């Protein structure tokens, strides 16, 4: 049967067909739909993990039980999960153990464009790179058997254009895998130094076997074409290269760590000129170049390798960028027109808006975090100073305070979402209490993991599949971390919000404000749109400071106006208007 699937859907389908038993993962663009789709298969235990480290460890535990296990995450998620990954690389597996990393070249929705193939190299585990949805399905299946065959976790590495592109996929049926059961084996499963020293020897032997396997691995393949140009490539870069250089010979690699050095040198020696086409870093290029250096008489080939000397290392690769790098892109006959940018904005009625309006008004230093609310940095709210990583708001505020003294704590607020707080904000908050901070943390509790497309979290009372779950309430959680000064507010009430922030920053203890209001896209309790009474509006533009997409300023009339298509009637602007011009009453035209 054929289906039209995204790479993420295909990975989920492939894992299901391979008989995966346990899946645990934290959402993160561009990986999220893998978990969402696995959650639809009833045969699998699938859960939303609290963070990526938790997800990888739960999957590792399932592998100990002889179950086939998978975890998936965005590239930066693997930084969080790196600690258990490196241990599991030594321990190996019992049931097949697959770690999916979805990288984000071009940073469509991320803070960096790190190349996670290096994790495979550093952890000394195999790396598989599919180049379309069909290969996503096939390699997700294959990754489990590879994992079991070589006693290793397998890194399945996707990128945004693999995860979020759709293609036609031939799907199969599920082959059940019954967990083989837990057997105590402390030499294998306890990483004390005495054991780990032996494990490392095995890891090195395993790498050699994998490199040999790669030489005859069917997904590492040569496509013979014109001998003048040979292209070594992998993943989505293969597809771009096929379009830009249709006549060339190709070495398409799928197992990109460890590399098949014999296959590579034979290919290089079979063509005149050689390009290495890859997105992100010089992962293939530097390993291939190393084969060409003469060390004690050994040199696999003698030829110049052209890669990142021409292809940009910064930003996403695409057919246009690739063609331009080699002077093959014709300039467009159309002249670009000057346009205002259209960045994403907080939705109309978003409860975060009230908090950021108040923070901007009070001119505080705001350490921010990862979520929709990072948009609080945008004009006109302009209410964020730093963003490091998941959970980094709480601890960055702590560092500012400890560097500059308690006076800084009176001018600083950390802002973090509910899901991000569960993910990695709690440990930072414990640090603040333990080390006598006087700082303030605002938890934006919108009862959902919004930015990645509305997933449940430990505070929502629902599991991945929407089943009932215990609600981990924020207030008692925060209290049990030792925080005594807690305020719960409605962020749509601007006066209450501002007063709560003022009280918190001036209190010489750790203060937490829980700004509680559900994401408007969840409850969708929209009220009728408001209208601006033009007789009352004096054109003061105060309402524009909210940065609401529904409000704009009519320059000819010198009045604010509300677009009824966008307004959801949250009334925050009405509460702000000094002339009470916003309302639902009779509007005099």
């Amino acid at each position, binding site marked *: 049967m054929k289906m*039209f699937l995204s790479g993420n859907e295909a990975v989920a389908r492939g894992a299901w067909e391979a008989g995966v038993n346990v899946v645990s993962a934290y959402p993160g*663009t*561009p990986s*999220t*739909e893998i978990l969402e789709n696995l959650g639809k298969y009833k045969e699998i235990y699938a859960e939303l993990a609290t963070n990526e480290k938790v997800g990888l460890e739960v999957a590792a535990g399932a592998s100990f039980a002889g179950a086939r296990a998978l975890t998936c995450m965005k590239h930066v998620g693997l930084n969080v999960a790196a600690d258990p990954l490196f241990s599991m690389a030594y321990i190996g597996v019992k049931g097949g153990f697959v770690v999916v990393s979805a990288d984000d070249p071009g940073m*469509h*929705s991320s803070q960096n464009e790190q190349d996670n193939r290096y994790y495979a190299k550093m952890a000394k585990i195999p790396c598989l790179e599919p180049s*379309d949805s069909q290969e996503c399905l096939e390699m997700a299946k294959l990754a489990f058997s590879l994992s079991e065959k070589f006693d290793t976790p397998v890194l399945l590495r996707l990128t*945004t*254009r693999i995860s*979020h*592109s*759709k*293609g*036609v996929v031939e799907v199969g049926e599920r082959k059940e895998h019954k967990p083989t059961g837990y057997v105590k084996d402390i030499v294998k499963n306890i990483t004390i130094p005495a054991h780990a020293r032996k494990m490392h020897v095995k890891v090195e032997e395993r790498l050699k076997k994998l490199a040999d396997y790669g030489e005859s691995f069917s997904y590492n393949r040569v496509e013979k074409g014109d001998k003048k140009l040979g292209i070594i490539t992998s993943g*989505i870069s293969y*597809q*771009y290269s*096929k*379009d*830009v250089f249709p006549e060339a010979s190709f070495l398409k690699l799928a197992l990109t760590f460890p590399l098949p050095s014999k296959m590579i040198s034979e290919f290089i020696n079979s063509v005149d000129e050689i390009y290495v086409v890859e997105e992100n870093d010089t992962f293939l290029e530097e390993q291939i170049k190393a084969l060409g250096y003469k060390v004690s008489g050994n040199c696999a080939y003698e030829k110049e390798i052209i890669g990142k000397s021409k292809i940009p290392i910064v930003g996403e690769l*695409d*057919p*246009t960028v690739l*063609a331009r790098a080699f002077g093959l*892109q*014709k300039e*467009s*006959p*159309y*002249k*670009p*027109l*000057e*346009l*205002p*940018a*259209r*960045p*994403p*904005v907080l*939705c109309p009625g978003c409860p975060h808006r009230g908090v950021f309006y108040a923070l901007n008004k009070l001119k505080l230093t705001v350490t921010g975090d990862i979520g*929709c609310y*990072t*948009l609080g940095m*945008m*004009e*006109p709210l302009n209410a964020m100073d730093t963003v490091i990583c998941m959970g980094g708001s709480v601890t960055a505020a702590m560092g500012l305070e400890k560097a500059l003294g308690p006076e800084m704590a009176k001018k600083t607020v950390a802002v973090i979402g509910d899901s991000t707080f569960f993910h990695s904000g709690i440990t930072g908050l414990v640090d603040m209490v333990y080390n006598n901070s006087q700082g303030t943390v605002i938890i934006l509790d919108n009862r959902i993991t919004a*930015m*990645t*497309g509305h997933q449940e979290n430990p505070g929502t009372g629902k599991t991945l599949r929407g089943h009932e779950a215990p609600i981990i309430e924020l207030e008692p959680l925060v209290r049990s971390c030792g925080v005594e000064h807690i305020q719960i507010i409605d962020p749509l009430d601007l006066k209450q919000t501002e007063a709560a922030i003022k009280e918190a920053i001036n209190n010489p203890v750790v203060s937490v404000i829980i700004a509680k209001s559900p994401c408007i896209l969840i409850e969708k309790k929209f009220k009728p749109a408001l209208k601006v009474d033009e007789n009352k509006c004096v054109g003061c*533009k105060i309402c*524009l400071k909210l*940065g609401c*997409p529904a*409000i*704009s*300023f009519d*320059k000819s009339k010198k009045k604010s106006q509300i*677009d009824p298509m966008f307004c959801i009637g949250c009334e925050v602007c009405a509460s702000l208007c000094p002339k009470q011009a916003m309302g639902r009453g009779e509007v005099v035209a």
Partner: protein
Amino acid sequence: MDTVNILICGVGGQGVLLAGDIIAETAIASGFDAKKSEVHGMAQRGGSVVSHVRFGQKVNSPLIRQGEADVILSFEEMETARYLQFLKADGCLIINRQQIIPMSVATGQAEYPVDIVEKIKQQVKNVVLCPGMELAEKAGSAKAVNTVLLGALAKKLELAPDKWQGIISQRVPAKTVEMNKKAFESGYDQQ
């Protein structure tokens, strides 16, 4: 047949991504290979949205190369101009007559470009202007703008209208199938 490239652009929330799905699925139902690419996540929140759809005998890259789009189907006037570099020299533009004001314009920091459609027409010969909202309302619901635009697109492509209608019927709520049929036809017939 050469690969057909269609770039769809607009603003988050307008239904750009669904339209891309329907085009690709119609092509597959007509016996072609197809790929489609778009971006999810933060980029969706009211920001500029673009979807690439390609179909033919065999499609490699899911992304269209600049200068190779046969059609740009634009849900919003100004967004058309943002992606003009993708259009082929003799390519066709289908522009929905709608302007959505970005935040920088709403707050008075920037201006919505004046006469943007006229400026585009000075550069591109083959332009279809589609009053999507007006036709959708006539068909029964303002929400059917993207179905109207798909009708306008279908006129430019060699995929059979009944294939389009079949896929659209599968993808819209059951109660709205008849209304969407009308919306598709009004887009198809308006040129």
